[in-house]
């Protein structure tokens, strides 16, 4: 049900763009107003989310400890899985952000005959996630060719590598195909694994469908329903140089693609996709496990009035002596 609702929502979005451009003639709105609004919402939203997280105190060290912590010199420490220094944390974050190390140690629980409980390694999610994120990144970077003129040199290398199969004209770019395939896998995984389906919400399906539809319209535009790339670049260059205009010859599929992308960007700060900033601000990842080496003082501790024994004795010395209670200072 969650999945169907999300699918309907994404189809609805595509229809809004289709009707808006084809029937209502709102090219200016869908070509200029929506992208600018989406980008503003994305930037401000991400910044405010991150600042909000930054203002939240993290008084104590709460890293997930996935290995042996630093202890006696003859016991080997798991330096990246249980870092005790800043350098170890940086390595842990690099491995986490670029290679999804924590997902790599994903395990699967099984009940075998006997009945026996078995845990086995499960790498498909890690592989699918890695393929999905990296190809999405490559696709995003590749789109810079529409926003820069002249195109910077490193893009040529990326594109040459991406299209090195030289299949068809325009040449198949591997990243786009893998992106769609990986997103489809991540969706099917939610549908076919019962316990994953049980915990899947509309907020899980919606971004997946959105990204799948973005990839699909992109692939359609490149290979099947030809869109005029020169007009598209005139629009995007206008947007990026803040002198936007709607050129002739933009097809409706381009507007659908643009509207879906705008929706995705505007949706990011309010959704789970915010993990793109959240991964850097996870206290369970970015803190060194040095609770036993460094004193961490709770930032909201208020000054506590204390009445030490010495002060107490000063106050009541005479009375204590009279009562025969031993005192430390005569």
């Amino acid at each position, binding site marked *: 049900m969650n999945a169907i609702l999300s699918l309907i929502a994404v189809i609805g979005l595509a229809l809004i763009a289709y009707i808006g451009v084809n029937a209502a003639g709102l090219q200016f709105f869908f070509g200029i107003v929506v992208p600018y609004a989406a980008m503003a919402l994305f*930037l401000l939203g*991400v*910044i405010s989310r*991150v*600042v909000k*997280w*930054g*203002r*939240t*105190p*993290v008084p104590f060290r709460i890293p997930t400890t996935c290995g042996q912590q630093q202890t006696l010199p003859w016991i080997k420490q798991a330096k990246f899985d249980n870092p005790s220094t800043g350098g170890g944390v940086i390595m842990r974050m690099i491995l986490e952000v670029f290679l999804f190390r924590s997902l790599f140690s994903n395990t699967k629980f099984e009940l075998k005959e006997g009945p026996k409980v078995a845990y086995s390694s499960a790498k498909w999610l890690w592989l699918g996630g890695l393929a999905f994120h990296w190809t999405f990144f490559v696709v995003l970077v590749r789109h*810079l*060719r*529409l*926003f*820069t*003129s*002249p*195109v*910077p040199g490193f*893009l*040529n290398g990326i*594109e*040459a590598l991406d299209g090195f199969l*030289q299949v*068809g*004209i*325009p040449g198949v770019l591997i990243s786009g195909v893998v992106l769609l395939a990986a997103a489809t896998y991540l969706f099917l995984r939610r549908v076919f694994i019962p316990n994953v389906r049980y915990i899947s919400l509309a907020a899980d399906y919606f971004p997946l469908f959105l990204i799948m539809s973005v990839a699909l319209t992109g692939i359609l535009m490149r290979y099947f329903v*030809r*869109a*005029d*790339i*020169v007009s598209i*670049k*005139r629009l995007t*260059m206008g947007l*990026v*140089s803040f002198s936007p205009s709607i050129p002739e010859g933009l097809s409706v599929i381009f507007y659908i693609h643009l509207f879906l992308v705008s929706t995705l960007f505007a949706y990011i700060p309010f959704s789970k996709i915010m993990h793109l*900033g959240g991964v*850097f*601000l996870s206290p369970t990842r970015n803190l060194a496990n040095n609770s036993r080496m460094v004193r961490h003082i709770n*930032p909201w501790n208020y000054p506590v009035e204390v009445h030490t024994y010495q002060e107490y004795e000063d106050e009541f010395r005479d009375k204590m002596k009279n009562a025969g209670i031993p005192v430390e200072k005569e």
Partner: protein
Amino acid sequence: MYNGGKIILGLVIFVGLFAFPIFYNTGKTADVPKPSLDTPVINQMEKKECVESKEWMKANHMQLLDSWRDSVLRDGNLVYESTGGKKYIMSLQNNCMHCHSNKKQFCDSCHSYANVKPYCWTCHIAPKENEI
């Protein structure tokens, strides 16, 4: 803010990366390509027409050329019949470039604008152009 320095540094990097095209493009003028049809052969034509309509060619010329290559090299079929019923020899160098002898002003104007790198000229010989 806790660890404000690091978080703000991260945000500045994020915004900087996001705004890369804006910084990159400032001071550079993006010329909108205008493919030139000013060649001796085209100027002499009475009715200026390509093998198909201009709009269709604009969108599909690369796929047409690709199918021509397959047709000539794999099937040995050298004649293309256009939707208008006219027959053309399928040849990039001898037919396309006969009219469009100005590769730099015609092909390259859009291709370099959109950063498209067709590999036509890894096999074919690019026309020698007289600098005017």
